[in-house]
């Protein structure tokens, strides 16, 4: 039952694509479904495909983990030291308000094309993670904290049995939405920075030679990559949260 609806909606989407491509009938504007998938199939046989995919995946994961570690550490510190929270809040608010394109263009100016996507993601993903983690930590039921204190429970046991499990659901929800956003931003940054060995650069090249079907093939790869990473997080969430 769970798989029926996604199949129907995907089928409908492909059908619309098929009909629009047939109606427009200009390969450059709307490539045919068959052409796009045969292009995808051809890409799968090329070494450069895996190098680009690997490069983007590596940058996505690296920036994601840097943002994650930074957000966790600062959220914990902010919880225990209110001054840090008060100091960080305006900075985080400003960073959140900066238009994504400004961040991308500025970091491309500041850093070389290999590293700018990392910094861009940090700017965009970190504030989201930090705010959500901080809310998660501070929303732990104060009565449960009082109960634990009354029963003289060790700090270590409180962290592992009370704090972390309470934060876990919102933690994984944040990771789940952040990871696909991360892939999108990394690819945008790669396009603009023309990062070597990246999906973004391949997309830019496809556009440059007006190969729209290849551009769409890369888009499908990007969607699948996000879907895959999101599902890895859902799987970890299921393994961790069993209550």
């Amino acid at each position, binding site marked *: 039952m769970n798989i029926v609806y996604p199949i129907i909606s995907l089928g409908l989407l492909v059908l619309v694509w098929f009909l629009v491509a047939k109606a427009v009938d200009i390969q450059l504007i709307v490539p045919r479904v068959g052409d796009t998938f045969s292009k995808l199939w051809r890409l799968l046989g090329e070494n450069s495909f895996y190098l680009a995919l690997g490069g983007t995946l590596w940058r996505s994961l690296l920036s994601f983990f840097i943002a994650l570690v930074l957000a966790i550490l600062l959220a914990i510190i902010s919880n225990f030291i209110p001054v840090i929270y008060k100091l960080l809040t305006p900075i985080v608010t400003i960073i959140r308000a900066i238009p994504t394109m400004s961040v991308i263009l500025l970091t491309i100016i500041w850093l070389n094309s290999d590293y700018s996507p990392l910094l861009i993601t940090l700017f965009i993903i970190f504030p989201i993670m930090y705010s959500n983690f901080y809310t998660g930590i501070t929303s732990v*039921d104060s*009565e*449960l904290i*009082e*109960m*634990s*204190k*009354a*029963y*003289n*429970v*060790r700090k270590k*046991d409180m962290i592992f*049995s*009370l704090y972390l*499990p*309470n934060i*876990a659901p919102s933690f994984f929800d944040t990771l789940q939405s952040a990871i696909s956003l991360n892939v999108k931003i990394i690819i945008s940054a790669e396009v603009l920075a023309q990062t070597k060995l990246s999906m973004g650069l391949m997309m830019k090249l496809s556009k440059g030679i007006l190969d729209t079907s290849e551009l769409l093939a890369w888009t499908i790869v990007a969607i699948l990559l996000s879907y895959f990473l999101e599902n890895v997080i859902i799987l970890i969430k299921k393994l961790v*949260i069993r*209550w």
Partner: protein
Amino acid sequence: MQLTNIYKKFDKKVVFEDFSMNFDEHKITCILGKSGCGKTTLLNIIAGVITAESGVVVGKSEKISYIFQNQLLLKNLTVYKNLEYVLKNTVFSKEEINKQIKAILDKVQLSEYAKYYPKQLSGGMAQRVSLARAFVYPSDLILMDEPFKGLDVSLKKRIMNLFKDLYRDNSKTTIFVTHDIEESLILGDRIIVLDDGGKILLDKKIAQSIFERDINSLADLRAEIYNII
């Protein structure tokens, strides 16, 4: 245990002004009073969850059990793990903890539910776990904050009887805060009625043991409490 010259305020509201009281060991002291008179604050001061501006608590046990109105079980831990959670920082060895938990779950008739998570339990079962936690914890003092509030009549009766059974085996000094006069007459060895600012309106001991008590014989006391509360 003795509270001496306790002074506590929240913002500008003075909850206790020079409050002093002795609590009898191995007895149940019931504290009655209208909402906001500081009953829970008193328990929290004794538990050390909050501190008073001035005053001292003398002869307090290092280890205290606390039974709350909301059972306050950790939703991510099974019944067994919830009990183990409070026992890890005690002198008990791992084997001893296991033995104690099995014994108390047997007493509260929840042995089959050891591996259940709180959301799989009914309200009555969760309150039984909460009682089990209080009695398995090696404390000398039990603080109870309206633990029977919100339970239907028959469930309340069963849980109160279960409390008596556990208390019969292990008579820890108990301070029981409630707004329900009947509960205090059923379980109290001593009944105290508090007013605003920690003023004591009534302080009566009941000679009859809670195990052989005829509640009807306390009609005069009931009427007296009704009149002042």
